[in-house]
Structure formats: C-alpha cells, structure tokens
C-alpha cells in the first residue's frame, strides 16, 4: 500500500495547534533566514546572537525594544480589528502619518503652558480623529459601493506620504521649523512630549497595552464584538440575524484608522518630538499587518508578537557593526509573514500519512465521515 499525505480539515484547533503552529513558523523563518545569511557569507549563529543581545538581553536593550514595540502594537491592533471582520486595512501607514500630522499640529498650536494631561489628551483625540477620518475615505466607498478597501487604503497611503513630505520638505508650513536650514519639523513643547519611563521607553507602551486589553474585551465580551465576529465569519448570516454590515464596516475601519493614528501620535510625541517624515516612514504600518497575521488577529497576541518583531528591527543597527547587511531585518520579517501564512494551512487542516492514521484522529471523531463523503458529490 502506498502511503499518501492525507489532509483533513480540523473542526477544532486546541491551543497547542493555535499557538504551536505560528511558533513553529517563526522557527522555520529563522532557519530560512540563517540559510540566506550563510549563502551571503555571514555566520548566522553570530548574527542571531548579536540580534538577541541587542534587543532582548538586559534591561536597556529591552527598553529599546519596547520603545519600538509601542507603535507596532498599535498598528498591529489596527490591522487585527479589521481582520476580525475580514476587512483589510492596508492603510495603517497612511493613517499613522495623519495621526502624526494632527497630533503635532495640536501640540504646536496649543499654548506651551497647557498642562501635560490636557495637551497629550488633546493630541491623542486629534490624532485618532484624523486617522479615523482618513480611514473613512476608504470605509465609506467600501460600505456603500463595495469598493475594494485593499486598493483604496493603499492608495491613500501614498497620498498621505506625499502630504506629509510636502508639509516638511515641500513648503514652509506651520509644522516646519523655520530656523533650521535642513527641512525638519518644529520641536514639540515639553508638555506635548510623552514622559519617558525608562531609557527610551515612554508611556506610549502603557497606552498600547491598555488598548490591546480593551480591544480584546470589546471583541470577545461585548455584543458589539459579537456582531463583528459574526460579520467576519459570514456577512450573509449577520444580515440574516438583523445586523448592520454597512454600519459595522465603517465603525471598524474608523476604529482601525484611529488605532494606527495613535501609533503616529505616540511616535511624534514620544520619539521624534516633532513631525519628522524620514523617521516616521519606517514601515510601522505595514509591520502591523504582519503582526496581526502572526497573532491570528487576537489583540492579546499582538503584544508579544510586536515585541518579537521590534526585537528583530532594533537589532538591525548592531548587525551593521559586525558587517551584516541591515536589510536582513526586513527579509526576516517577510519570511516570518510567509511561513506564518503557510502555517495557517496547518492550523485549519491536519496533515497525516494514510495507512497509519486510518484509525481516525480523535479531533475529527465528531464529523461523521459518511456525511463528508456524501457531501463531496
């Protein structure tokens, strides 16, 4: 008897599968990265050890990683909440810029003496609103004429990027510091800067983690989240049950845009301390998409995954010092995205060799095989 690979849909994936598969995918991605590094003539073990030391080993490395994880958690949540409803917000990048633009405007426009709580609060509200409105530019066409949100959110990224570049590089706008010859943003007043907690880590990390917990609660424990999950699984079933798919599409995309924009607020306020296009265009929005996929759209999963990807990114500069191409960071992110995506197949399906597995895996005992057999014709 020849043995063949048998693929069986899983009805039910236990935590072992749901967490084990993405974890294995990460390991596979790191192995592939090692192979590529070796082919390029580097020592992969040394590279990985350097990366570990630079990002996770010791408190000061850790704070640098957490500082970078802060916006990633937020853009990761932004992508995750949209994925929950099977809406693809690829516009995190642009929404982040809009958040940064709006927040820095408020920070610069309010009197410098405004108390920090009000200042930061106003910046967060303004940033989130701007991001939500920017997302609605894609959400409204999606809700009313079903215009593909992948394309529209993406196109809006490029528009937002040019807009931000124009504010600093292309004009003498309110945001630009007129005193410096090199185009750069005006520095925010002290009260508009998020206080540091330790090293570079600032209170943005607290906002991000609280946002993750809140979002998880909203999705899992409220009737609003119940509707989102229903629509995500089957819009027709949701409509049948009397839910408003159109309204939720707009609400979720606006929420998603707001979260990505808060990442922008956190960056201008906690890191760049002014509207600095070059520093803000470091793929934070796109990385959020990878994070949401790896975390399987679970808001609580977004936090550790963000920290992991932030660790890879932080270690980039140290790699250069030992003569390794910094671009390996982006490559590793891509590989992780790829292997985790492939891993989804193994979460949804059980792959086994025929012959040995005939006895019937316990996982599938609940699906009557005759039904399956008849349903195939």
């Amino acid at each position: 008897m020849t043995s063949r690979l048998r693929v069986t849909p899983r009805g039910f994936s236990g935590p072992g599968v749901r967490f084990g598969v993405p974890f294995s995918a990460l390991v596979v991605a790191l192995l592939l990265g090692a192979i590529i590094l070796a082919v390029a003539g580097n020592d992969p073990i040394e590279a990985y050890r350097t990366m570990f030391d630079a990002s996770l080993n010791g408190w000061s490395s850790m704070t640098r990683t957490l500082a970078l994880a802060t916006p990633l958690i937020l853009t990761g949540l932004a992508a995750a909440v949209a994925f929950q409803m099977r809406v693809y917000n690829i516009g995190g990048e642009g929404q982040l810029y809009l958040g940064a633009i709006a927040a820095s405007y408020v920070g610069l426009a309010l009197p410098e003496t405004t108390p920090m709580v009000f200042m930061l609060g106003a910046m967060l509200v303004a940033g989130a609103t701007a991001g939500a409105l920017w997302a609605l530019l894609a959400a409204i066409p999606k809700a009313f004429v079903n215009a593909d949100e992948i394309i529209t959110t993406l196109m809006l990224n490029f528009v937002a990027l040019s807009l931000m570049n124009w504010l600093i590089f292309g004009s003498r706008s309110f945001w630009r510091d007129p005193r410096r010859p090199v185009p750069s943003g005006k520095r925010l007043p002290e009260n508009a800067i998020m206080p540091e907690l330790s090293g570079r880590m600032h209170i943005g990390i607290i906002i991000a983690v609280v946002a993750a917990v809140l979002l998880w609660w909203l999705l899992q424990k409220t009737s609003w989240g119940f509707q989102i999950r229903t629509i995500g699984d089957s819009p027709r079933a949701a409509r049948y049950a009397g839910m408003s798919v159109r309204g939720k599409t707009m609400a979720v995309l606006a929420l998603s845009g707001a979260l990505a924009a808060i990442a922008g607020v956190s960056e201008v306020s906690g890191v760049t301390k002014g509207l600095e296009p070059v520093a803000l265009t470091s793929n934070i929005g796109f990385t959020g998409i990878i994070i949401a996929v790896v975390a399987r759209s679970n808001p609580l999963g977004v936090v550790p995954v963000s920290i992991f990807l932030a660790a890879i990114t932080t270690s980039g500069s140290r790699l250069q010092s030992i003569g390794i191409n910094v671009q390996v960071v982006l490559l590793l992110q891509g590989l992780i995205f790829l292997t985790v995506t492939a891993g989804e197949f193994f979460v949804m399906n059980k792959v086994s060799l025929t012959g040995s597995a005939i006895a019937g895996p316990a996982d599938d005992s609940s699906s009557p095989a005759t039904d399956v057999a008849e349903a195939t014709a």
Partner: protein
Amino acid sequence: MAGESTHLEVRNLTKSFYGVPAIDAVNFELRGGEIHGLLGENGAGKSTLCSVLSGLYRPDSGTVSLNGQDVAFRSPQEASSHGIGMVYQHFRLVNSFTVAQNIVLGLSKDQRPRSMRQVERMVGDLAEEFGLHVDPSASIWQLSVGEQQRVEILKQLFRGAKILILDEPTAVLAAQETDRLFDAVSTMVDKGHGVVLVSHKMAETMEYTDRITVLRRGKNGGSVETRDTTPAEVARMMFGDSSAAERTTFDTSHEVGEPVLSLSGVSVLGDHGLPAVNDVSFEVRRGQVVGVAGVAGNGQRELQEAIAGLRPLVEGTITVADTDCSNAGPKATMQAGLAYVPEDRLGVGLAPGLPLEHNMVLKSYDRAPHSRRGVLADAAIEKTMDMLVEDFDVRGNRRGMRVSLMSGGNLQKAILARELNEIHQVLLAAAPTRGLDMAAAEAVRAHIVDERATRRGVLVFSEDLDEIVHMSDVIIVMFKGRIVGSFERDELDLDQVGLLMTGSGLDADDASDQVSAAS
C-alpha cells in the same frame, strides 16, 4: 474508446473517509442496454460509489471491471476515455461559456474539432440523434435547468460515453421535463448504452428502470429485476424491516384563526436587477400550514428574502402579525414575529466558522439574559445552548468547534431550535429537509407541523412536492415569480399542480387571474 458491448462490474468495492467506510464491500453490475436504478438514503453511499466509477475517487480495495477487463481510473478523464460519463446533480458547466465551448472544454488536441462551428454542427447532430434539443451557440446562463442538463448529457455523449451515470437527474426537473429526459434515456438504451439512475425516489425508479440495486449504510441492500419487485420490497431493502419509511401522518383537523402573515401585490427584483417576484398576494393564518410548490428558480428564494426583510420590495406590502413590515429590514421583521429557517443553512442560517453557542444566540445575543448593557453573559449563552441541544436532540457538537463540521440534519435542527425558541407568530421554512436523511427529515417536519398546534402560522417552501402535500393545509404553486395556483388540501389535484409548476396551459393573463384567486 469503449467497445461495442458494455458491461460494467464492481466487486467488493470499499472506500473510507477518515477511517469510516462510506461504501463497504459493495457489488454492482450494469449491462449494456439497461437502465439500472441505484437507490438509497442520503449517506447510503450512492454518491461515493458513483464517484469511484467516474474516476473522482480511488477505491481503498475491490475491483471495477469493464467488459471483463479490470480497470482503475485515476481521474474522471480516464473514466471518460473508457466510455463512462457522469452527469452530476449540480451541473459542472461554466455559466459564461456557450454550450459548444462547454462541450469541448478540456478535450485533448486529437479529440478536439478544429473550429467552433464544426463543434456546433456535431453537437447539433448528436442532439438530433438522441432528442436532446439545445442551441449549441447559446450561453449556459440563458438556458433553463432542463436544457442545461441536456448539455451535460451531450457533453458525455460527445466524449463517447457508453455508460452514463445520472445523479438524481429529476431532482431539479418538472414533470414534463422529466418525461423528456427519460425519452432521451430510452433512446440511449436502445442504442446499447447503459444508464445508472441514482435516485431516492421510489416512483420514478419503479417506472423507468430495468433493475434496481439498493445501498444501505454503505453496504449492498439487494439487487432485483424491477418487474419482479414491489415498492414495499424495495423500501424494506432501503430501510430495513422497521418500516421507518412510512411517514407519520399529521393531524390536520383544527380551526384556522386570523392571518399572521399577509402579502399583497408583492414584487421584487432578483440579483441581476430583473423582476423575480411579480404581484404576489396570499395569507397565512394561525393554525395553518401553507406550502409553496414550484420548480427551483421560479422566484422562491427572492420571495423568502423579501418576506424576511432581506430584499427590498419594489411594490406591495408584507404584514407580519398586524405589523407592517414592508421594507422594514430583517430586524424589524424578526421583532414583529417572523421566525425564518433559510434555504442555505451554512452561511445564512448559521455562521459556519463560529461555534454552536455563538450560533444559538445569533438573534438574541443583544438581549437579556444573553447580554446586559452590551456585555455578553457567557454563562447564560451556554445555558441556552445546552437547553436547545437537549430539547431538539442536536448531536455532534464539541465545545468551541466550528458548526460547519456538523452534519446537515443536526445543523437544521440547531437552526429550528433557535428560531422556534424566539418569540414568534409565524415560521417561514425554506427547503427544510433538503439533503437530510429520513430520520432527521421526519424530526424536522414534526417540529414544523407542531407549530400548527400552538396556533402559529407556517409558510413552507420545498421542491419536494410529496413533502408539501404531506404537510400543508393550503398549497400554492409558483411559476416565473407568480402564484399560478392555490389549492385547499382536500381539493388538491396533483396532475394540475404538476402542470402549473411547469407553466403549462397558462399565459400571462391567466397567471394574474390565478393570483387574485389565490388570495
């Protein structure tokens, strides 16, 4: 290519899925020039056997021999090149292609005529020869279901099929189209072809076949010459001696009350913006089951969606228990008292990827006890699920498992459980027993008919005329989006219903007269 004589023999065929045999040591024989009925309940293994014969599945063990030669097909094409062709119940035709394009699709270079015009001529000749008339240059979407079926058969004949497997070919046909189909089938048989007729309808099997093989729970239930047997004997082979085949008869002696669902002059558009339902008016009263008969695709689905508030009305009004629900949307219609068991169980009635507890509160998640001030009460939700699972005997659930892996019968019971648990005045049930095995179908019918006793109204749509007749107090017939006939149970004339279902003897004026008569 197949030889002159055609003789197919299957010995000890076994095929398992996930370790459970779907067919187990099955034997089957088909001779050239005969129509061989293959009978069995859903899940008896008919489809699996046919899929092995047509090369879709490879058997785990056992042999298939053709004219004395053992054969093992690795693909439907290998089966086809040996002269075995299968016509599926759900046609495998590309809608946007023409008849001729569909027929040559996938043919290899040497099988393929040079030009489309040549193909069209050859198809025309074949159609003439077998009485399967269809325009070779028409696009599939322009054809009726009966015509599409002819294309499927022509496709197989074009490929030189000597053995045709017809999988429940009459399930989608009206009576007159069924006659045409069997005319063509007898022409084939006269020319020496062998035909396997897969069915679970006793009457047509007795009428048209030469021999009958019954499958029961994956095993042979027996093979007989049709002329030597009786329906009762075949039923025993199908269901065993327990005579589960006999349907419960429902008590129909009760008073009807005031209307709980009224439609007046309802017109709606279909998915492509064309009129799908035209000026439909009728009433469902308390304590009454109204059955809508009709061949699929005559506006039933659109009408159901209109009643449920899922499809906008172009004209007319819909009233549910004294509330005007015209264009009020699904939620308001639900709140007015409509329970709705939709045609599509997975994807409409249930969210397939979510667990049962989620699906059981799909319509009541936002109310106490399932949620308070927008926060879900998981314990209450679980309690509701456990209660409904218990009351409606829903089986096969595991905590956290996506419902799509449950069987059709259990899914339907789950939907019914949820819908009947809601406060409601009228139940709308579409194709409630489609694809269910006997026991599950019977349970579902019993639940539906129970509604009559609780003084609610029921509107049931089904393609199964027997079922409609069996359950309903009033039977109305739909054709091309109109009500073309309405009958009280006692005055029912089945022949007349059959004619109306196919639109025979009606023109547009008659049809609209019938509408007013119906209401």
